[in-house]
């Protein structure tokens, strides 16, 4: 139930007509829920150069035939990054993360030291450019002290460089990771402190539970609201995911 609420809560971040950069896995599931439930005109872009994807089911790879077949157009990989993402034409990015920290930095590179990692993760891929240039970026991840950490082991994708430091001087036109949606609730960036704070909890989840599961002293907003349960359209969309 809580993973389903995570997907539904993330889908609600997609407004109808938004142009949204997504990856495989949970971001694609989120896209499908949004399209079926409330955002039929949202357009989805994949790093493989698929613009306006309309998959019938979540793709395994970014070049799946089902993903490609109904696409508005296919463009080369350098074009999707240079003209569409860097060019400021993508309003929202949705990514997964192995680790995300209190300042919205994301790690998908290594656990441990880069030169001699305990665990070598796949790497940054499209995420740095998504967070750098999509209007804003949403991370979707399960909530635990292993995934929500005080400081990531390695900054693959930049949130905020340090307390109080802004992204403006870096020439990044995107706001970066502004929202983290988990199976316990939703965290949003507090622009004053530059850190993520709890703004929503899923039904039946206490604020203390979320704080216990977080690797830094997670602040809660003054008015933490409860996630609305899935609407009939959202429930149907979840069902259709299989």
């Amino acid at each position, binding site marked *: 139930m809580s993973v389903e609420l995570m997907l539904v809560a993330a889908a609600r971040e997609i407004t109808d007509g938004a142009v949204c950069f997504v990856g495989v*896995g949970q971001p694609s599931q989120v896209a499908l829920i949004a399209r079926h439930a409330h955002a039929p005109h949202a357009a989805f872009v994949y790093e493989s150069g698929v613009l306006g994807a309309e998959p019938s089911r979540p793709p395994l790879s970014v070049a799946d035939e089902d993903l490609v077949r109904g696409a508005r157009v296919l463009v080369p990989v350098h074009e999707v*990054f240079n003209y569409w993402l860097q060019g400021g034409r993508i309003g929202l990015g949705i990514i997964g993360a192995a680790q995300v920290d209190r300042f919205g930095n994301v790690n998908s590179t290594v656990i441990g030291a880069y030169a001699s990692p305990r665990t*070598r993760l796949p790497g940054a891929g499209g995420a740095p450019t998504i967070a*750098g240039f999509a209007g804003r970026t949403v991370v979707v991840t399960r909530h635990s002290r292993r995934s929500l950490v005080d400081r990531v082991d390695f900054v693959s994708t930049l949130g905020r460089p340090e307390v109080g430091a802004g992204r403006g*001087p870096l020439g*990044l036109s995107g706001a970066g990771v502004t929202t983290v949606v988990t199976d316990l609730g939703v965290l949003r960036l507090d622009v004053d402190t530059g850190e993520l704070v709890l703004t929503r909890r899923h039904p039946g989840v206490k604020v203390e539970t979320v704080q216990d599961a977080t690797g830094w002293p997670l602040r809660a907003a003054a008015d933490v609201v409860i996630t609305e349960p899935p609407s009939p359209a959202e429930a149907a969309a979840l069902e259709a995911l299989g």
Partner: protein
Amino acid sequence: MARFAELSEAIAEHVRPGVSVALEGFSHLVPYAAGQEIIRQRVGDLTVIRMVPDLVVDQMIGLGMVATLVFSWGGNPGLGSLYRLRDAAENGWPRPLRLVEHSHAELANRFVAGAAHLPYMLMRGSPVGDLRSPHVAEVTCPFTGERATAVQALHPDVAVVHAQEADREGNVLFRGVIGVQKEAILASRAAVVTVERMVDALPRGSNEVIVPGWAVSAVCVCPRGAWPSYAMGGGYARDDDFYRRWREVSRDRSSFLAWGEGAR
């Protein structure tokens, strides 16, 4: 002018020990058959360039053929880790693997710079994050004074890619997800293109992705040359099951080595 050749000939001529080889195809048109031939010939000390290594490079790494990997995302799409890549990076097995790591945008743009014969390609914003590379530098725009990122041109010794069609003159046509194959061909000193089939003539006056035969070194006819990935219109689907089974085959060294014996 492109020379038609058997795959074994083309690989023996162009993919020699110690070369840098760009094996591109972004989850589609992965040059798997060509990769298998490189493996069959056990070409060693390679610098392999592939944005998403995929199974074919995982195999080469596990067989000790790769000295350096240039890449931007090293997972098994949708399925988690590439275990041979991980074993090399975490444990130096079967040999230490030097990683030249980038984001997708950086590596794609390194190919663009190479294809355009520029010293670097420019990207917006200062370099950020913890990844440090001698091929990425901060520069200042001479017109606006803004800080930007320069990514150094890449010039592989050879590009090895797969396309759908070639005509008798060695012009090659790519359909579907096109990745950076064209840039890889044009940035490299030589280019081997495997194709699903020969056709009498490719379209004229078209904006489809056609690389003229005079920009290609060798063309080899390899039906199903992208399996277990696929070639749009090639008549075979991506073999998702094989990608799943690869997880089990490659997860530990003994099952991988058993697979390796069969690949001789």
